[in-house]
Protein backbone atom coordinates (compact mmCIF):
# COMPACT_ATOMS: atom_id res chain seq x y z
CA UNK A 1 0.00 0.00 0.00
CA UNK A 2 1.35 3.41 -1.00
CA UNK A 3 -0.38 6.33 0.72
CA UNK A 4 -0.49 9.82 -0.68
CA UNK A 5 0.77 12.69 1.45
CA UNK A 6 -2.04 15.08 2.48
CA UNK A 7 -3.01 17.84 0.04
CA UNK A 8 -5.94 20.10 -0.83
CA UNK A 9 -7.53 19.53 -4.23
CA UNK A 10 -8.82 22.49 -6.26
CA UNK A 11 -10.95 22.40 -9.39
CA UNK A 12 -10.85 25.79 -11.13
CA UNK A 13 -13.20 26.36 -14.09
CA UNK A 14 -10.97 28.64 -16.15
CA UNK A 15 -7.31 28.90 -17.15
CA UNK A 16 -7.00 32.30 -15.44
CA UNK A 17 -8.41 30.89 -12.22
CA UNK A 18 -5.91 27.98 -12.35
CA UNK A 19 -2.99 30.33 -12.99
CA UNK A 20 -4.19 32.55 -10.12
CA UNK A 21 -4.29 29.62 -7.69
CA UNK A 22 -0.83 28.45 -8.73
CA UNK A 23 0.50 31.96 -8.30
CA UNK A 24 -1.13 32.37 -4.91
CA UNK A 25 0.54 29.30 -3.39
CA UNK A 26 3.79 29.40 -5.38
CA UNK A 27 6.08 26.45 -4.64
CA UNK A 28 3.44 24.87 -2.38
CA UNK A 29 1.16 24.13 -5.36
CA UNK A 30 1.43 21.97 -8.50
CA UNK A 31 -0.85 21.58 -11.51
CA UNK A 32 -2.27 18.11 -12.14
CA UNK A 33 -3.97 16.83 -15.27
CA UNK A 34 -4.33 13.05 -15.59
CA UNK A 35 -2.14 12.58 -12.52
CA UNK A 36 -0.60 9.45 -14.04
CA UNK A 37 2.92 10.81 -13.50
CA UNK A 38 2.40 13.13 -10.54
CA UNK A 39 0.30 10.85 -8.32
CA UNK A 40 2.77 7.91 -8.39
CA UNK A 41 5.58 10.44 -7.81
CA UNK A 42 3.72 11.84 -4.81
CA UNK A 43 3.25 8.32 -3.47
CA UNK A 44 7.04 8.03 -3.70
CA UNK A 45 7.35 11.38 -1.86
CA UNK A 46 9.18 12.92 -4.81
CA UNK A 47 6.66 15.77 -4.56
CA UNK A 48 4.62 16.77 -1.52
CA UNK A 49 2.57 19.78 -2.66
CA UNK A 50 0.06 21.27 -0.24
CA UNK A 51 -2.26 22.17 -3.11
CA UNK A 52 -3.09 20.34 -6.32
CA UNK A 53 -4.65 22.49 -9.02
CA UNK A 54 -6.62 20.21 -11.35
CA UNK A 55 -6.70 21.22 -15.03
CA UNK A 56 -8.64 18.48 -16.78
CA UNK A 57 -12.11 19.85 -16.01
CA UNK A 58 -11.32 23.28 -17.53
CA UNK A 59 -13.41 23.42 -20.73
CA UNK A 60 -10.98 25.84 -22.40
CA UNK A 61 -8.17 23.28 -22.14
CA UNK A 62 -10.04 20.64 -24.11
CA UNK A 63 -10.88 20.17 -27.75
CA UNK A 64 -9.40 19.97 -31.22
CA UNK A 65 -9.85 22.79 -33.68
CA UNK A 66 -8.47 23.96 -37.00
CA UNK A 67 -6.94 27.40 -36.82
CA UNK A 68 -5.86 28.55 -40.27
CA UNK A 69 -2.97 26.35 -41.28
CA UNK A 70 -2.64 24.49 -37.97
CA UNK A 71 -4.41 22.01 -35.75
CA UNK A 72 -4.78 23.22 -32.17
CA UNK A 73 -5.16 20.62 -29.42
CA UNK A 74 -6.16 21.51 -25.86
CA UNK A 75 -3.43 20.74 -23.31
CA UNK A 76 -5.84 18.66 -21.22
CA UNK A 77 -7.00 16.44 -24.10
CA UNK A 78 -6.34 12.80 -23.23
CA UNK A 79 -3.77 10.72 -25.06
CA UNK A 80 -6.54 8.27 -26.00
CA UNK A 81 -8.50 11.01 -27.76
CA UNK A 82 -5.37 12.31 -29.51
CA UNK A 83 -4.56 8.77 -30.70
CA UNK A 84 -8.02 8.19 -32.15
CA UNK A 85 -8.88 11.64 -33.47
CA UNK A 86 -9.57 11.34 -37.23
CA UNK A 87 -7.72 14.50 -38.22
CA UNK A 88 -4.68 13.61 -36.11
CA UNK A 89 -4.64 10.14 -37.67
CA UNK A 90 -4.93 11.51 -41.19
CA UNK A 91 -2.58 14.49 -41.04
CA UNK A 92 -0.23 13.55 -38.18
CA UNK A 93 -0.04 9.74 -38.11
CA UNK A 94 3.26 9.74 -36.20
CA UNK A 95 1.61 11.74 -33.39
CA UNK A 96 -1.35 9.34 -33.28
CA UNK A 97 1.16 6.46 -33.14
CA UNK A 98 3.21 8.02 -30.32
CA UNK A 99 0.13 8.93 -28.23
CA UNK A 100 -1.27 5.44 -28.84
CA UNK A 101 1.93 3.84 -27.55
CA UNK A 102 2.09 5.69 -24.24
CA UNK A 103 1.71 3.29 -21.30
CA UNK A 104 -1.49 1.16 -21.46
CA UNK A 105 -5.15 1.83 -22.32
CA UNK A 106 -6.31 3.00 -18.87
CA UNK A 107 -3.36 5.40 -18.56
CA UNK A 108 -4.11 6.83 -22.02
CA UNK A 109 -7.72 7.45 -20.96
CA UNK A 110 -6.37 9.39 -17.98
CA UNK A 111 -3.10 10.99 -19.12
CA UNK A 112 -3.07 14.19 -21.16
CA UNK A 113 -1.00 15.73 -23.93
CA UNK A 114 0.04 18.66 -21.69
CA UNK A 115 1.05 16.27 -18.91
CA UNK A 116 3.04 14.22 -21.39
CA UNK A 117 4.95 17.32 -22.52
CA UNK A 118 5.65 18.20 -18.87
CA UNK A 119 6.44 14.63 -17.75
CA UNK A 120 9.10 14.59 -15.05
CA UNK A 121 12.42 13.02 -16.10
CA UNK A 122 13.01 9.43 -15.00
CA UNK A 123 15.91 7.48 -13.49
CA UNK A 124 16.40 4.07 -11.85
CA UNK A 125 17.59 5.84 -8.70
CA UNK A 126 14.75 8.35 -8.59
CA UNK A 127 11.45 6.59 -9.40
CA UNK A 128 11.50 4.58 -6.19
CA UNK A 129 9.76 4.70 -2.84
CA UNK A 130 11.06 6.93 -0.10
CA UNK A 131 12.17 3.80 1.79
CA UNK A 132 14.25 2.64 -1.19
CA UNK A 133 15.83 6.03 -1.78
CA UNK A 134 16.58 6.46 1.90
CA UNK A 135 18.26 3.05 2.01
CA UNK A 136 20.59 3.88 -0.88
CA UNK A 137 21.19 7.49 0.08
CA UNK A 138 19.25 10.18 -1.78
CA UNK A 139 20.46 11.74 -5.04
CA UNK A 140 20.93 15.19 -6.53
CA UNK A 141 17.52 15.37 -8.11
CA UNK A 142 15.75 14.89 -4.80
CA UNK A 143 17.02 15.35 -1.23
CA UNK A 144 20.67 14.33 -1.85
CA UNK A 145 23.95 15.66 -3.17
CA UNK A 146 25.37 12.88 -5.34
CA UNK A 147 24.38 11.43 -8.67
CA UNK A 148 24.41 7.64 -8.60
CA UNK A 149 24.64 7.47 -12.38
CA UNK A 150 27.63 9.68 -13.11
CA UNK A 151 29.00 9.42 -9.53
CA UNK A 152 31.24 12.46 -10.01
CA UNK A 153 29.11 15.03 -11.82
CA UNK A 154 27.03 17.77 -10.25
CA UNK A 155 24.44 17.43 -12.95
CA UNK A 156 21.38 15.22 -13.08
CA UNK A 157 21.10 13.09 -16.22
CA UNK A 158 17.67 11.56 -15.58
CA UNK A 159 16.00 10.69 -18.88
CA UNK A 160 13.29 12.56 -20.74
CA UNK A 161 10.87 9.63 -21.23
CA UNK A 162 7.74 11.00 -22.88
CA UNK A 163 6.57 9.70 -26.24
CA UNK A 164 4.82 12.66 -27.85
CA UNK A 165 7.42 15.49 -27.50
CA UNK A 166 9.99 14.06 -29.95
CA UNK A 167 7.22 13.67 -32.53
CA UNK A 168 5.85 17.15 -31.86
CA UNK A 169 9.38 18.52 -32.36
CA UNK A 170 9.69 16.90 -35.80
CA UNK A 171 6.27 18.36 -36.68
CA UNK A 172 7.32 21.91 -35.76
CA UNK A 173 4.74 22.22 -32.96
CA UNK A 174 4.50 25.17 -30.60
CA UNK A 175 2.89 25.27 -27.19
CA UNK A 176 1.09 28.07 -25.41
CA UNK A 177 2.13 28.63 -21.80
CA UNK A 178 -0.11 30.59 -19.44
CA UNK A 179 1.39 32.07 -16.29
CA UNK A 180 1.01 34.99 -13.91
CA UNK A 181 2.78 37.24 -16.42
CA UNK A 182 0.43 36.34 -19.25
CA UNK A 183 0.60 33.97 -22.17
CA UNK A 184 3.52 33.11 -24.42
CA UNK A 185 4.17 30.73 -27.29
CA UNK A 186 7.26 28.54 -27.31
CA UNK A 187 8.46 26.29 -30.12
CA UNK A 188 8.88 22.78 -28.76
CA UNK A 189 12.35 22.69 -30.33
CA UNK A 190 13.40 25.45 -27.92
CA UNK A 191 11.50 24.13 -24.93
CA UNK A 192 13.66 21.39 -23.41
CA UNK A 193 16.90 21.84 -21.45
CA UNK A 194 19.70 19.37 -20.67
CA UNK A 195 19.05 19.44 -16.94
CA UNK A 196 17.42 16.35 -15.44
CA UNK A 197 16.15 18.25 -12.40
CA UNK A 198 13.97 20.67 -14.37
CA UNK A 199 14.29 19.94 -18.06
CA UNK A 200 12.29 22.71 -19.69
CA UNK A 201 11.88 26.46 -20.03
CA UNK A 202 8.46 26.24 -18.39
CA UNK A 203 8.49 28.32 -15.20
CA UNK A 204 6.89 26.62 -12.20
CA UNK A 205 3.34 28.01 -12.10
CA UNK A 206 3.04 28.12 -15.87
CA UNK A 207 0.69 25.68 -17.58
CA UNK A 208 0.60 24.29 -21.10
CA UNK A 209 -2.82 25.35 -22.36
CA UNK A 210 -2.64 24.24 -25.99
CA UNK A 211 -0.46 22.63 -28.59
CA UNK A 212 -0.39 24.03 -32.11
CA UNK A 213 0.79 21.84 -34.97
CA UNK A 214 1.16 23.31 -38.47
CA UNK A 215 -0.38 21.20 -41.24
CA UNK A 216 2.41 19.69 -43.29
CA UNK A 217 2.85 20.10 -47.02
CA UNK A 218 1.47 17.34 -49.16
CA UNK A 219 4.77 15.50 -49.60
CA UNK A 220 5.73 15.50 -45.98
CA UNK A 221 6.00 12.29 -43.99
CA UNK A 222 6.79 11.51 -40.38
CA UNK A 223 7.33 8.34 -38.36
CA UNK A 224 7.96 7.20 -34.79
CA UNK A 225 9.61 4.09 -33.36
CA UNK A 226 9.77 3.10 -29.72
CA UNK A 227 11.99 0.54 -28.02
CA UNK A 228 10.70 -0.95 -24.78
CA UNK A 229 10.69 -4.19 -22.87
CA UNK A 230 7.03 -5.08 -23.42
CA UNK A 231 4.73 -3.75 -26.13
CA UNK A 232 2.51 -2.13 -23.53
CA UNK A 233 2.72 -0.22 -20.23
CA UNK A 234 6.47 0.45 -20.46
CA UNK A 235 8.19 3.80 -20.88
CA UNK A 236 10.50 4.10 -23.88
CA UNK A 237 14.09 2.90 -23.44
CA UNK A 238 14.91 4.68 -26.66
CA UNK A 239 12.66 6.29 -29.21
CA UNK A 240 13.15 7.96 -32.55
CA UNK A 241 10.95 10.49 -34.34
CA UNK A 242 11.72 11.52 -37.91
CA UNK A 243 10.11 13.75 -40.52
CA UNK A 244 11.02 14.63 -44.08
CA UNK A 245 9.65 16.60 -47.03
CA UNK A 246 10.05 15.15 -50.47
CA UNK A 247 10.13 16.69 -53.95
CA UNK A 248 7.98 15.08 -56.59
CA UNK A 249 11.07 13.20 -57.78
CA UNK A 250 11.36 11.56 -54.37
CA UNK A 251 14.38 13.61 -53.36
CA UNK A 252 14.57 14.84 -49.79
CA UNK A 253 14.19 18.62 -49.36
CA UNK A 254 13.90 18.76 -45.56
CA UNK A 255 14.76 16.15 -42.93
CA UNK A 256 14.78 16.02 -39.17
CA UNK A 257 15.38 13.39 -36.52
CA UNK A 258 14.93 13.43 -32.73
CA UNK A 259 16.10 10.71 -30.35
CA UNK A 260 14.85 10.51 -26.81
CA UNK A 261 14.86 8.56 -23.53
CA UNK A 262 18.65 8.74 -23.35
CA UNK A 263 19.31 12.05 -21.60
CA UNK A 264 17.40 14.87 -19.96
CA UNK A 265 16.16 16.35 -23.21
CA UNK A 266 15.09 14.95 -26.56
CA UNK A 267 18.17 15.18 -28.79
CA UNK A 268 17.83 16.85 -32.16
CA UNK A 269 20.15 14.93 -34.48
CA UNK A 270 22.65 17.12 -36.32
CA UNK A 271 24.35 16.74 -39.67
CA UNK A 272 21.39 15.03 -41.33
CA UNK A 273 20.67 17.74 -43.88
CA UNK A 274 24.19 17.53 -45.31
CA UNK A 275 23.78 13.78 -45.84
CA UNK A 276 20.26 13.60 -47.23
CA UNK A 277 19.25 16.86 -48.95
CA UNK A 278 18.76 16.52 -52.67
CA UNK A 279 18.98 12.74 -52.56
CA UNK A 280 16.32 10.04 -52.50
CA UNK A 281 16.00 8.07 -49.26
CA UNK A 282 18.07 5.14 -50.52
CA UNK A 283 19.46 2.36 -48.38
CA UNK A 284 22.81 4.07 -48.59
CA UNK A 285 21.45 7.40 -47.34
CA UNK A 286 19.52 5.70 -44.52
CA UNK A 287 22.68 3.85 -43.50
CA UNK A 288 24.67 7.11 -43.41
CA UNK A 289 21.97 8.85 -41.33
CA UNK A 290 21.82 5.92 -38.89
CA UNK A 291 25.60 5.94 -38.53
CA UNK A 292 25.55 9.69 -37.92
CA UNK A 293 22.89 9.21 -35.19
CA UNK A 294 24.91 6.44 -33.55
CA UNK A 295 27.94 8.72 -33.20
CA UNK A 296 25.87 11.37 -31.41
CA UNK A 297 24.04 9.19 -28.88
CA UNK A 298 25.65 8.06 -25.64
CA UNK A 299 23.12 6.50 -23.28
CA UNK A 300 23.94 6.36 -19.56
CA UNK A 301 23.12 3.82 -16.85
CA UNK A 302 19.93 5.68 -15.92
CA UNK A 303 17.46 3.01 -17.08
CA UNK A 304 16.95 -0.64 -16.22
CA UNK A 305 18.68 -1.98 -19.32
CA UNK A 306 22.32 -2.02 -20.33
CA UNK A 307 23.53 1.28 -21.80
CA UNK A 308 25.75 -0.42 -24.40
CA UNK A 309 22.79 -2.34 -25.74
CA UNK A 310 20.68 0.80 -25.89
CA UNK A 311 23.48 2.50 -27.85
CA UNK A 312 23.69 -0.41 -30.25
CA UNK A 313 19.95 -0.09 -30.84
CA UNK A 314 20.19 3.57 -31.92
CA UNK A 315 21.05 2.86 -35.58
CA UNK A 316 18.55 -0.02 -35.66
CA UNK A 317 15.67 2.18 -34.49
CA UNK A 318 16.72 5.10 -36.71
CA UNK A 319 16.78 2.78 -39.73
CA UNK A 320 13.28 1.49 -38.89
CA UNK A 321 11.93 5.01 -38.55
CA UNK A 322 13.50 6.21 -41.79
CA UNK A 323 12.33 3.17 -43.74
CA UNK A 324 8.79 4.04 -42.70
CA UNK A 325 9.20 7.41 -44.48
CA UNK A 326 9.82 6.02 -47.92
CA UNK A 327 7.26 7.33 -50.39
CA UNK A 328 6.75 3.83 -51.75
CA UNK A 329 8.77 3.02 -54.89
CA UNK A 330 9.90 6.51 -55.80
CA UNK A 331 12.95 6.63 -53.58
CA UNK A 332 13.83 2.98 -53.06
CA UNK A 333 17.20 2.23 -54.54
Amino acid sequence: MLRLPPFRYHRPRTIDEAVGLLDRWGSRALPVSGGTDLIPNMKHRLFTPDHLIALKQIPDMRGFRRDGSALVIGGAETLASVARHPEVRRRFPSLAAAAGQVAGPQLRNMGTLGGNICLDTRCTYYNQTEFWRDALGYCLKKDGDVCHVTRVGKKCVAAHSADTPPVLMTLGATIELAGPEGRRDVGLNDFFLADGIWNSRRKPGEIVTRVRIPFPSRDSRAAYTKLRQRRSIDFPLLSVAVSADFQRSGRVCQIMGVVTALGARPRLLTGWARIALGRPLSNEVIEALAERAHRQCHPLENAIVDADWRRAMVPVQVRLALEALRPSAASAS
Partner: protein
Amino acid sequence: MVKATTCIVHLRVNGDDYAPGVPSHYTLLETLRYVIGLTGSKQGCDKGDCGACTVILDGEPHLSCITPVLAAEGREIRTVEGLAGAGRPHPLQDAFDLNGAAQCGFCTPGILCSAVALLERNDAPTRTEIREALAGNLCRCTGYTKIYDAVESAAEVLRGQSGGGTGNGE
Protein backbone atom coordinates in the same frame (compact mmCIF):
# COMPACT_ATOMS: atom_id res chain seq x y z
CA MET B 1 3.03 19.56 4.49
CA VAL B 2 -0.57 20.52 5.16
CA LYS B 3 -2.57 18.60 7.73
CA ALA B 4 -5.04 16.02 6.44
CA THR B 5 -8.62 17.24 6.25
CA THR B 6 -11.85 15.38 5.78
CA CYS B 7 -14.35 16.38 3.14
CA ILE B 8 -17.73 15.13 2.01
CA VAL B 9 -17.41 13.65 -1.45
CA HIS B 10 -20.40 12.87 -3.68
CA LEU B 11 -19.89 9.67 -5.61
CA ARG B 12 -22.19 7.72 -7.87
CA VAL B 13 -21.06 4.09 -7.83
CA ASN B 14 -22.92 1.38 -9.76
CA GLY B 15 -25.96 3.64 -9.85
CA ASP B 16 -26.01 4.27 -6.08
CA ASP B 17 -25.27 7.65 -4.54
CA TYR B 18 -22.79 7.92 -1.68
CA ALA B 19 -21.66 10.97 0.27
CA PRO B 20 -19.06 9.72 2.74
CA GLY B 21 -16.60 11.83 4.70
CA VAL B 22 -13.16 11.06 3.27
CA PRO B 23 -9.65 12.44 3.87
CA SER B 24 -9.22 14.77 0.89
CA HIS B 25 -5.98 13.04 -0.19
CA TYR B 26 -7.54 9.58 -0.49
CA THR B 27 -7.53 7.84 -3.84
CA LEU B 28 -10.75 6.58 -5.42
CA LEU B 29 -9.55 3.02 -4.71
CA GLU B 30 -9.00 3.71 -1.00
CA THR B 31 -12.45 5.28 -0.81
CA LEU B 32 -14.14 2.35 -2.55
CA ARG B 33 -12.37 -0.28 -0.48
CA TYR B 34 -11.95 1.28 2.95
CA VAL B 35 -14.74 3.85 3.19
CA ILE B 36 -17.63 2.51 1.11
CA GLY B 37 -16.73 -1.15 1.62
CA LEU B 38 -16.63 -2.21 -2.04
CA THR B 39 -13.54 -4.41 -1.91
CA GLY B 40 -13.95 -5.96 -5.36
CA SER B 41 -11.47 -3.53 -6.95
CA LYS B 42 -8.03 -4.77 -5.97
CA GLN B 43 -5.01 -2.93 -4.65
CA GLY B 44 -2.05 -4.46 -6.46
CA CYS B 45 0.95 -2.25 -7.19
CA ASP B 46 -0.94 0.85 -5.98
CA LYS B 47 1.03 3.01 -8.43
CA GLY B 48 -0.43 2.61 -11.89
CA ASP B 49 1.48 -0.39 -13.22
CA CYS B 50 -0.76 -3.44 -12.98
CA GLY B 51 -4.44 -2.68 -13.70
CA ALA B 52 -5.85 -4.62 -10.70
CA CYS B 53 -7.68 -1.48 -9.54
CA THR B 54 -9.33 -0.75 -12.92
CA VAL B 55 -12.83 0.75 -12.68
CA ILE B 56 -15.03 2.25 -15.40
CA LEU B 57 -15.35 6.06 -15.23
CA ASP B 58 -17.88 7.54 -17.66
CA GLY B 59 -17.56 4.45 -19.84
CA GLU B 60 -13.76 4.31 -19.94
CA PRO B 61 -11.41 2.11 -17.90
CA HIS B 62 -9.37 4.13 -15.38
CA LEU B 63 -6.88 3.19 -12.65
CA SER B 64 -8.53 4.01 -9.33
CA CYS B 65 -5.26 3.70 -7.33
CA ILE B 66 -3.88 6.88 -8.90
CA THR B 67 -7.18 8.79 -9.21
CA PRO B 68 -7.66 11.34 -6.40
CA VAL B 69 -11.14 10.70 -5.03
CA LEU B 70 -12.19 14.29 -5.68
CA ALA B 71 -11.38 13.83 -9.38
CA ALA B 72 -14.11 11.17 -9.53
CA GLU B 73 -16.83 13.42 -8.10
CA GLY B 74 -19.76 13.91 -10.45
CA ARG B 75 -18.76 11.03 -12.70
CA GLU B 76 -20.42 7.69 -13.37
CA ILE B 77 -18.29 5.09 -11.55
CA ARG B 78 -18.71 1.37 -12.22
CA THR B 79 -16.85 -1.37 -10.38
CA VAL B 80 -16.85 -5.14 -10.64
CA GLU B 81 -19.69 -5.25 -8.09
CA GLY B 82 -21.93 -3.45 -10.57
CA LEU B 83 -21.45 -5.75 -13.56
CA ALA B 84 -23.92 -8.50 -12.65
CA GLY B 85 -27.60 -7.98 -13.46
CA ALA B 86 -30.45 -8.75 -11.07
CA GLY B 87 -29.67 -12.19 -9.71
CA ARG B 88 -27.49 -13.16 -12.68
CA PRO B 89 -23.81 -12.78 -13.40
CA HIS B 90 -22.80 -10.73 -16.44
CA PRO B 91 -22.28 -13.02 -19.46
CA LEU B 92 -18.58 -12.16 -19.27
CA GLN B 93 -18.44 -13.42 -15.69
CA ASP B 94 -20.09 -16.67 -16.83
CA ALA B 95 -17.59 -16.92 -19.67
CA PHE B 96 -14.67 -16.46 -17.25
CA ASP B 97 -16.07 -19.35 -15.22
CA LEU B 98 -16.71 -21.63 -18.21
CA ASN B 99 -13.31 -20.91 -19.82
CA GLY B 100 -11.20 -21.17 -16.68
CA ALA B 101 -10.09 -17.57 -17.20
CA ALA B 102 -9.52 -16.88 -13.49
CA GLN B 103 -6.97 -18.69 -11.36
CA CYS B 104 -5.95 -16.77 -8.24
CA GLY B 105 -8.48 -14.14 -9.31
CA PHE B 106 -6.56 -11.08 -8.18
CA CYS B 107 -6.44 -9.54 -11.66
CA THR B 108 -10.01 -10.59 -12.51
CA PRO B 109 -12.06 -7.57 -11.33
CA GLY B 110 -9.81 -5.18 -13.25
CA ILE B 111 -9.81 -7.35 -16.35
CA LEU B 112 -13.60 -7.68 -16.23
CA CYS B 113 -13.91 -3.90 -16.13
CA SER B 114 -11.52 -3.37 -19.07
CA ALA B 115 -13.27 -6.09 -21.07
CA VAL B 116 -16.83 -4.92 -20.30
CA ALA B 117 -15.92 -1.41 -21.46
CA LEU B 118 -14.58 -2.94 -24.67
CA LEU B 119 -17.70 -5.06 -25.27
CA GLU B 120 -19.95 -2.07 -24.71
CA ARG B 121 -18.32 -0.12 -27.52
CA ASN B 122 -17.57 -3.07 -29.80
CA ASP B 123 -19.78 -6.15 -29.79
CA ALA B 124 -17.56 -8.15 -32.14
CA PRO B 125 -13.96 -7.42 -31.17
CA THR B 126 -11.14 -9.20 -33.00
CA ARG B 127 -8.48 -11.08 -31.06
CA THR B 128 -6.12 -8.14 -31.61
CA GLU B 129 -8.69 -5.64 -30.33
CA ILE B 130 -9.20 -7.78 -27.22
CA ARG B 131 -5.46 -7.98 -26.59
CA GLU B 132 -5.11 -4.22 -27.03
CA ALA B 133 -8.01 -3.46 -24.71
CA LEU B 134 -6.49 -5.69 -22.01
CA ALA B 135 -2.90 -4.50 -22.54
CA GLY B 136 -2.99 -2.50 -19.30
CA ASN B 137 -3.97 -5.43 -17.08
CA LEU B 138 -1.30 -7.81 -15.82
CA CYS B 139 -2.11 -11.42 -14.93
CA ARG B 140 0.56 -13.56 -13.33
CA CYS B 141 -1.41 -16.85 -13.49
CA THR B 142 -3.32 -17.58 -16.66
CA GLY B 143 -1.00 -16.69 -19.53
CA TYR B 144 -3.91 -14.60 -20.89
CA THR B 145 -5.10 -17.07 -23.56
CA LYS B 146 -8.13 -18.26 -21.61
CA ILE B 147 -9.00 -14.68 -20.76
CA TYR B 148 -9.09 -13.76 -24.46
CA ASP B 149 -11.17 -16.90 -25.14
CA ALA B 150 -13.63 -15.85 -22.44
CA VAL B 151 -14.02 -12.33 -23.88
CA GLU B 152 -14.61 -13.80 -27.33
CA SER B 153 -17.27 -16.21 -26.12
CA ALA B 154 -18.97 -13.52 -24.02
CA ALA B 155 -19.12 -11.30 -27.10
CA GLU B 156 -20.90 -14.09 -28.93
CA VAL B 157 -23.40 -14.58 -26.10
CA LEU B 158 -24.07 -10.84 -25.91
CA ARG B 159 -24.65 -10.61 -29.66
CA GLY B 160 -27.11 -13.49 -29.38
CA GLN B 161 -28.94 -11.80 -26.50
CA SER B 162 -29.30 -8.52 -28.36
CA GLY B 163 -30.71 -10.40 -31.32
CA GLY B 164 -28.18 -8.68 -33.56
CA GLY B 165 -26.03 -11.77 -34.05
CA THR B 166 -24.69 -12.38 -37.51
CA GLY B 167 -25.19 -16.10 -37.07
CA ASN B 168 -21.79 -17.34 -38.06
CA GLY B 169 -22.86 -20.93 -38.11
CA GLU B 170 -22.18 -22.46 -34.67
